[in-house]
C-alpha cells in the first residue's frame, strides 16, 4: 500500500511537475540562478506586508540594468582562427558577419542571374521534348558548359571558379535551374557534382588525375551513384559491397536512378566497406560494370540508368575521402541539399504557372482565382514554398560556413519531400483536367517532385 502511495505521489506531484515541463537538458546559468532567486522574492508575502514591493522592484530594476550590462560584454564571441591542414586543396569556408540576412552576395546574385537566363531560355523550352525522349539535348548540355556549371564548385587554385566553400552558391544555382526543368537540371549538374566532390574530398593525386578534364574544354560526363533499387532504402546502409582484394577492392551491387549512367565516363559509387559506407571512384571502362536504362516516373531528361557492378576491381587509390563513413555521410547531406534546392525551384515554377492560370481561367462568370477554395490553395503553395526555401537556405549557409548542418538538411529534406509533393499535387488540381494533360507542364512537375526525398546522390552542392 505504501509503495502504491509513493508511486502515485511521484507520478502526480513528484518528479515531473517540480520540473515545470523542462527537458532534462535544461540547466540554469548564473543569471538563471539570480532569476530563480528573484522569483522566490516575488512570491514572498513579507515584502507586501512590509509595503516594500515598489522599493524592491526599483532595486531589481537597477541591479538588472547593471548586471545585464556585464553579461552582454562577457557574452561577446570572437571569430575563430582557421588553420590549414590535410592533403589536397580544399575550398575555404565562407567568412561571416554574424547578421541574419537573406541577401545573396553580389557574386551569388550575378551567378543566379546568369543561370536564371539559362533556365528560362534554354531549359524550359527544351523540357517537354527531353521528357519524351529521355535525353538532354546536346546543345542544352553544351550551353551548360559555357556558363561554367561543371567548375562552379571547384576551387580557384584547381582551375575552378570558387574562392570559398560554394554550398550556398550551389544551392542558389540549383534552385534557379530547377525553375527551368528538374530533369535537365540534373543532367546539367551531374558532371559538376563529381568535380565538386573531387574538390571537397580528393587527394592531391586524385585531383591532379581527374580535375583537369573537368576544367578543360572536353568535360567528361560523370555521375554520383548512391541510390539502390531496395524497398525502404537507407542510403547509409547500402547493399553494394567493397571487399579488400590485394592492394585494391572488389565492388559488387546494383545502383539505380544513375543520372546519364549510359554516357558517364566517371562514377562516384557508394559501397559498404568493413561496415562503413564509403565512396569509390570508378571509371566507366572497368571490367564487370554494366549499364541498362532505368526510365522512371519523372526527371526523365536525366536519362536515368541502372548500374550493375559484378566483381569490379578498383585500385586502393579509388577510395574518395575517409573510410569511416564520415565523407559518405557528408556527401549524402550535401546531395540532399541540392535536391531541396531543385524542389524549391520547381515549386516556384508551379506557383508562377498556377498564379497566371487561375487569374485567366473563368468559371461561373469570373476568374476562378476569385473563389477562396482556389485562392487559398495558392496561398498554401506560397507559404510552404517559402518554408522550403528558408529551411534549405539555412542548411546551405551552415554548410558554407563549415558548421554542422545535419539537423537543418534533414528538416529541409523532410519539408521539400512532403510539401514539395503537395505543391505538385495542387498544381495539377488547380488546372483541373488541363493539368492532367501534357499541354501544360504541371503534370511533369508533379512527376518530378515525387523524386525529392526518394532519390539520393546524383547532385550535390
Amino acid at each position, binding site marked *: 500500500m505504501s509503495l502504491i502511495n509513493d508511486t502515485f505521489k511521484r507520478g502526480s506531484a513528484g518528479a515531473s511537475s517540480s520540473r515545470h515541463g523542462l527537458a532534462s537538458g535544461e540547466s540554469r546559468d548564473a*543569471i538563471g540562478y539570480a532569476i*530563480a532567486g528573484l522569483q522566490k522574492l516575488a512570491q514572498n508575502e513579507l515584502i507586501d506586508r512590509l509595503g516594500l514591493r515598489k522599493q524592491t522592484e526599483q532595486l531589481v530594476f537597477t541591479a*538588472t540594468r547593471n548586471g545585464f550590462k556585464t553579461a552582454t560584454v562577457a557574452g561577446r564571441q570572437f571569430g575563430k582562427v582557421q588553420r590549414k591542414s590535410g592533403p589536397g586543396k580544399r575550398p575555404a569556408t565562407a567568412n561571416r558577419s554574424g547578421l541574419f540576412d*537573406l541577401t545573396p552576395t553580389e557574386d551569388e546574385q550575378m551567378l543566379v542571374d546568369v543561370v536564371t537566363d539559362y533556365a528560362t531560355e534554354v531549359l524550359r523550352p527544351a523540357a517537354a521534348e527531353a521528357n519524351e525522349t529521355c535525353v538532354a539535348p546536346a546543345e542544352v548540355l553544351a550551353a551548360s558548359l559555357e556558363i561554367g556549371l561543371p567548375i562552379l564548385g571547384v576551387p580557384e587554385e584547381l582551375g575552378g571558379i570558387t574562392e570559398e566553400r560554394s554550398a550556398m552558391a550551389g544551392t542558389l544555382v540549383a534552385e534557379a535551374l530547377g525553375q527551368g526543368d528538374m530533369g535537365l537540371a540534373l543532367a546539367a549538374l551531374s558532371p559538376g557534382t563529381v568535380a565538386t566532390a573531387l574538390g571537397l574530398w580528393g587527394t592531391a593525386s586524385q585531383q591532379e588525375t581527374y580535375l583537369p578534364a573537368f576544367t578543360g574544354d572536353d568535360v567528361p560526363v560523370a555521375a554520383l551513384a548512391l541510390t539502390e533499387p531496395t524497398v525502404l*532504402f*537507407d542510403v547509409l546502409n547500402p547493399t553494394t559491397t567493397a571487399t579488400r582484394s590485394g592492394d585494391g577492392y572488389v565492388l559488387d551491387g546494383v545502383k539505380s536512378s544513375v543520372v546519364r549512367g549510359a554516357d558517364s565516363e566517371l562514377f562516384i559509387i557508394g559501397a559498404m566497406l568493413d561496415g562503413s559506407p564509403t565512396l569509390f571512384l570508378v571509371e566507366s571502362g572497368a571490367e564487370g560494370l554494366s549499364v541498362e536504362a532505368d526510365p522512371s516516373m519523372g526527371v526523365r531528361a536525366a536519362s536515368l540508368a541502372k548500374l550493375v557492378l559484378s566483381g569490379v576491381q578498383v585500385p586502393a587509390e579509388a577510395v574518395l575521402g575517409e573510410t569511416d563513413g564520415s565523407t559518405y555521410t557528408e556527401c549524402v547531406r550535401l546531395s540532399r541539399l541540392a535536391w531541396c534546392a531543385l524542389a524549391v525551384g520547381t515549386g516556384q515554377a508551379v506557383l508562377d504557372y498556377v498564379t497566371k492560370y487561375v487569374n485567366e481561367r473563368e468559371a461561373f462568370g469570373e476568374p476562378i482565382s476569385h473563389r477562396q477554395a482556389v485562392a487559398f490553395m495558392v496561398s498554401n503553395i506560397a507559404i510552404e514554398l517559402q518554408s522550403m526555401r528558408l529551411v534549405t537556405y539555412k542548411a546551405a549557409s551552415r554548410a558554407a*560556413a563549415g558548421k554542422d548542418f545535419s539537423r537543418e538538411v534533414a528538416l529541409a529534406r523532410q519539408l521539400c519531400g512532403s510539401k514539395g509533393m503537395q505543391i505538385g499535387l495542387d498544381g495539377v488540381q488547380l488546372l483541373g483536367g488541363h493539368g492532367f494533360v501534357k499541354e501544360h507542364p504541371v503534370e511533369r512537375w508533379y512527376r518530378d517532385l515525387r523524386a525529392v526525398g526518394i532519390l539520393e546522390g546524383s547532385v550535390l552542392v
Partner: protein
Amino acid sequence: MINLETPKKHRVLVDQAHQVAMNMLRPISRKYDQAEHEYPKELDMLAAMIDGLSDSGSNEGAGATGVRRDESADDGSVKNGANLASVLSIAEMCWGDTGLLLSMPRQGLGNSAIASVANDEQLKRFEGTWAAMAITEPSTGSDSASITTTARLDGDEYVLNGEKIFVTSGDRADSVVVWATLDKALGRAAIKSFVVKKGNPGMKVERLEHKLGIRASDTAVITFTDCRVPASDLLGSPEVDVKQGFAGAMATFDNTRPLVAAMAVGCARASLDLTRDLLAQAGIVVDYDRPAQVQSAAAAKFLQMEADWEAAHLLTMQAAWMADNRKPNSLEASMAKAKAGRVGSDITLSCVELAGSVGYSEAELLEKWSRDSKILDIFEGTQQIQLLIIARRILGLTSAELR
C-alpha cells in the same frame, strides 16, 4: 550574405530571455493556469527587470514597442534591430508561458499599436503606459472594417460609444487602444484608434472571460458610454483619407503579426523540447540522417513537426528582418502568422498524442501548451484571414475581387 542563424548580437538577449522563462515563468505556469483571473504579482518584479534590461541597452530594443519603424536615413547596410530582437525574445518567453507573456506589464499589444502609429509627441507622452488593444466587437471579428463603436468630435474631445470584447489585459492595463469609426458612411478610412486611460468614467470593464487557454492572461469585455477622450489621444492623423483607406490602422498588424507568430513558435518549442526528452526516455531517438520511413512512426512524426517548426521560426525571423530593414512585409508577416499558427496547433496537439496520458494529464504541461496554442491561430487575424491576405497579394486581387 545569406545567413539564417540567430544573430550573434542577439544571442545574449535570447539566452537571458530563456533563463527568465525557465526560472521565473515556468515555476508559476500551472499556478496561474489554475488561478484564472488572479493577478500574477510576480510579473511586476519581472517587468521591473525587463525595464532594467531595456535601460541597459542589452535587450536590443526588444519588446512590444520594438516594432516602431525607424525613419532615420538608410545607409543600405543590413540591419538586425528591434523587430528581430522582439520576435526572438518573445518566442523564448512563450517557451516559458504564453499567458504570462501576454500579461507582462507595459508589453501589451496596445503598446505595439502605439509604437506603430503614434506621432513622436504621442509616443513620448504614452511612454511607460501599459496599453491593451480593443478591436473586436460582439458582432465583428475578422471583419474589422465594419466595427460599430463610434467616435464623435465634440469640441476638443472625442466621445466614444460601443462595446469591445476579447480585450487582452483589458482589466490590468493602464490604458486601452480602442478602434472606433469617425463616420460609418466613409468606410474603413474613417476607422481611427484612441488611447483611453483607465479610470475614465465612460469606460467600464463589464466582465472577464473564462477561456480554453492563456488563462493567466485576463480577457475583458469593455463598454464605452459617452466616454470622452482628449482629441490629442487619437493616434496618428485625424484626417479621413479615403485613398489611404484602412492602411493607417492596419499597419499595426504588419508589426504585431510576426510577434504573435513568435508566440506560437515559442509555445510549440516548449512541447517539442519536452516531447523529445520523453521520447528519448522511452527509447525513441530521432536520427537526422536516416530516412524517416525507416525510423519509428513516433520519430517520423517528430521529424515532420520539427521541420514545420523550423519553417515557422524562419518565416517569423524573415518578417521581422524585413521590418528592421524597412522592406514592406505585409505578405511575409501573414505567411509567418499562418504557418506558425497552424504548426503551433499541430505540434502541441501531436505532442500530447505522442505522450499519451502523460501528455493529457495536468501532471505535465503538454496539455496546457496545447490549450494555449489555439488562440495564436485566431487573434491578430485568423488562419483564414491570413490566407486571404496572402492570396490577394500573390494573385494581385483587390478585396472586392477576392472576398
